[in-house]
Structures are given as C-alpha cells and as structure tokens.
C-alpha cells in the first residue's frame, strides 16, 4: 500500500534519513521506533509532503514525490503531530469538520463528522474552543480531524506521549477500533514498547535515519542490535 524506496533526506550536512526502504501493507498496524533524533518524524514529514527528498515514495502504486501536503491528504494519507496541534479559533466540531470539508474527496458530510465526534468521544465537548481542551481530548481531536478526511492510512506521531496509564489504554483501544472497525491502515511512532508490541504486526527500528531492524515485534525487541542501540540491556 505504501512503499518507501531508497529514501534519503539531508538538511545541509546532516543526513536525517539515509537510504531508507520499507513497505506497509493494507490493513496493518505498522510501528516505528528508535532513539530521539533517529529521523522518525522526518519520515512522516517526507511521506506527507512537508519536505522534498531523494528516492521514491509510492502510495497504492503511484509515486507521490513532489506532491504538496494538502494533495497527499486528498490521496488518503492522514497524520497527527507529536506536539498536539489544534485550531484555537475553532470549536471541536468545526475542527473535525475542517478535515472532512478540505481533506476528503466528495462533498462535505455533516453526518460523517457527527459519527467521528461520537467515535472519538468528542461529542460532549463539540462546542468547546479547542484551545481549552485537555491533552487527551486534543489528541482525540487531532485523530478525529485526520479521520474526517476519510483516510486509507492514518499516521500517528507519538500519540501516547504525556499520557497516564488510563489514557494510554483508552487511546490504544481507539487505535485498535480505527484499524479493525474502519479498516484503516495505521502507522504509529511510539516510545512505549509495550504499546508497540501489543498493537503492531510489524515493527521498524531506525537510528540516525537508517533501518536497524524490521519484523514482527517479538523478534525485533530481542534483536541484539536493537537492544544495543535503543532498548538497552535492562529491557524486558
């Protein structure tokens, strides 16, 4: 469904992503992990059109290199951000509506927005300005607005960061349902290995923009190289 082929991104002398190749299959929950500064969020920015790059990124067989972020959104790739982004001038309902009106193909569908508000448990705060929301609700709002674009792939950037154990459980359940009930492929960047091992079917570890290991989570977390560069000897 999504294929990165020898993708490289340099910022001046710094090589943020180095000849990276991997593929995500339809219906998967695909995890990406690695130390801080490994280039995980940069990979997201390349896929979603925020930065130009060398190499090829193909989505459903089409090369999407050179497309702008708003065009990528219309193709069916949605994302969230590591630092929660909201529209403080808009209400929760309006913000989710933005995704459906501008990002989805076809006409604006208020009933669909309504269903997303309910799905993400945002109905009680639908009329609230987004700036006043709790951290959990801000994350739900970002996911809701992304879902309102009717994506085929949803890319989540550290959705659990700053959350307590109850919130993590709640967000994990939402991600499972998005994947299972809506049939949306998920890519998730996360530092909580427990989340990744429970949610994902394939896990990719990168360090300094280079692939270290990829495979099923159980195999990856026991890989000596992954333990050395990321997890540490005390893991497990």
């Amino acid at each position, binding site marked *: 469904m999504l294929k990165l082929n020898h993708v490289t991104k340099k910022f001046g002398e710094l090589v943020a992503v180095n000849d990276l190749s991997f593929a995500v299959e339809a219906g998967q929950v695909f995890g990406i992990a690695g130390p801080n500064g490994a280039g995980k969020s940069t990979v997201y920015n390349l896929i*979603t059109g*925020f930065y130009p790059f060398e190499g090829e990124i193909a989505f459903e067989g089409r090369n999407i290199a050179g497309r*702008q*972020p*708003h065009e990528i*959104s*219309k193709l069916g790739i*949605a*994302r969230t*951000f590591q630092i929660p*982004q*909201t*529209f*403080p*001038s*808009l209400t929760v309902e*309006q*913000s989710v*509506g*933005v*995704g459906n*009106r*501008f*990002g*989805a193909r076809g006409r*604006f569908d208020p009933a669909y927005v309504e269903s997303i508000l309910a799905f993400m448990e945002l109905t009680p705060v639908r009329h609230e300005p987004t700036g006043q929301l709790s951290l959990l609700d801000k994350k739900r709002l*970002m996911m809701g*607005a*992304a879902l*309102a*674009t009717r994506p085929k792939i949803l890319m989540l950037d550290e959705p659990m960061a700053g959350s307590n154990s109850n919130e993590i459980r709640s967000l994990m359940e939402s991600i499972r349902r998005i994947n299972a009930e809506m049939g949306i492929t998920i890519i998730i960047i996360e530092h909580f290995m427990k989340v990744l091992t429970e949610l994902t079917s394939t896990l990719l570890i990168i360090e300094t923009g280079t692939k270290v290991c990829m495979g099923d989570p159980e195999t990856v977390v026991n890989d000596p190289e992954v333990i050395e560069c990321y997890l540490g000897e005390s893991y497990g």
Partner: protein
Amino acid sequence: MSWQRMAAIMGVVYGIVAILPLFVGDIRFIMQILIICLIWAVVASCWDVIMGFAGIFSFGQVAFFVIGAYTSGIFAVSWQVPAVLAILMAGLFTAGMGVLVGLPCLKLAGPYVALVTFGVHMTLMPLLRGDIGIALGSGGSVGILTIPPITLFGYAFSSANIIPTFYLTLALAVTCSVVILVVINSYWGTAFLALKDSEEFAVSLGISAFKYKLMVFALTSFLTGVVGAYYGHYIGMLSTRMLELDLFVTLMVMLVVGGIGKFPGAILGAFITVTVNELLAPLGSYRAVTMGALVVILVLLLPNGVMGFWLRRSKAGATST
C-alpha cells in the same frame, strides 16, 4: 462570534448611520466626516480580514487603497472611462497587484511579510511621483486634480450633492461589509482561521495554503481597491500624500480600537477613531500627542479593542445568569 451576531451589530451600526442625515443632513462638515468614516470602515475591515482572520501581517492596505484610487483616476482622466467602469477595473487591477504581492509572502513568516508589504507601500510614492508614474498619468508630485464624479443615470454623485452621495457610500460600505461577513463565515473563513492557528495541521487536513492565502490577498485588495477608487471620484483629486504615515497609522488605530480579528469591530473602530480625531481638532498641534496617549491607554485597558471588551462582557453576563 456567530454570523447572526455579526450581522446584528453591523445592522445596528449602519442603521444608526443611515438615519443620521435626518438630524445632521444640513451640516455639510458632519456629512463629509460620515462619508469618510464609511470609506475607512471598509478599508479597516479588509485589513482585519487579512491580518486578524488570516493571520497574514500585511502592511500593504494603504498601498492597495492608493493603487485603486490612482488606477481609477488614470482610467477616468486619461482614457475617459466612465467612473463606475473605472472603479470596477481598478478593483480588478488592485486584486491582481494583491496576488502579485501575496506570492512572495507565501514563503515568509509574519515580520517578513510585514516588511515586504510595507516595502510595496514605500516604493509607491517615488513610483507615482517619478517618470514612470507621470508617463502612466499619475500627475507626478501634483497628483490627479480633475477626477470626474460617479455618474449614474445622468446624476452626479459628488460632494456638491452630499446626501445622495452619503447614501451611495453607505450602500457601498454595506455591500463590502456583507461580502466580508459572508466570506469569513463561509468555508473560506474557516480555512483562513485554520491556517492562522496551525498551518501544518491545516495543510495536513487538505487546506491549500497557496490557494487560500492568495484568495485573501485577492479579496481584500479588490475591495480596498474599489473603495480607494470610489474615494478618488468622491474627492475629485488625488495626491501621494495619502502614502505618508498619518493615514497608515490612523487605519492601524481603527483596527486596534475595534479589535483585531473581531469583525465587525473594525467598523466601530473607524467611526470611533475618526470621531475622536475630529473632536480633538481644537487641540491643534497637541491633537496627535493626545490621540497617541488615548491609544496607549486603550490598548492597555482593552487589548482586544471595544469589540473584544463587549464580547467578554456579554459572555460574562451570560455565564452569571
């Protein structure tokens, strides 16, 4: 603020203004001030749309006003184009200029947009006064002195017929304000606000920053250009003096007084600022100092302008009941 509330405030303000000639129609000086208030109300509102709603720190509003005024003046004087047609053409030309100015601004952050757009403002005076301007018909440093008034069905709307001209200006101001009201409450307005709040989140949700930022430049410069052109035909003469800092600062004061991003606050701001400025006229050379001091006090006491204050009060009132 809901569109119904915005429309209600606009209706009340313009409704009161519409009946004022019943009481002060024979005082020519006041009627002229009201006409000027209506013109600045539109220009300040346009500035509010681009700066307050779209979050683009454009300082080119006076430049667009002058471009519209001179374009229509040149069309009407040099090429004998009828005033109404010249005004429309001036609006379209100014919109084109707005898009041209907007293009380099797409890649720039706030302060740099302010610099680029103010640069356009700064280059306009030497351009209009210099050889290029003279060749185009700007009249150089003298300006354009014989701009014909707007004529509709054989009736000339000029300062000689102040009451009909007032109502024509009111109709223009109401039309422009309704256009702004509709735009900021449509999905265009939602896109402007989303891009202002978080551009990266907005574009990731499918909003084209290129399209909507250029749209806001085109729309606000079109309306400003039309009103600038109208102003030229109403006054009958133009000079580059409009490009000196007085008007620029006065317009900014209107915006701050009304409340940035608090449409239709800019309309209120225009009426309040022009009225206070006229009331301070007896102070002579102390007028500017007093006005400046009043603005400082107002910004400290009401950082969101009169509209922000009123909205806060009404919200507090609704919460306490």
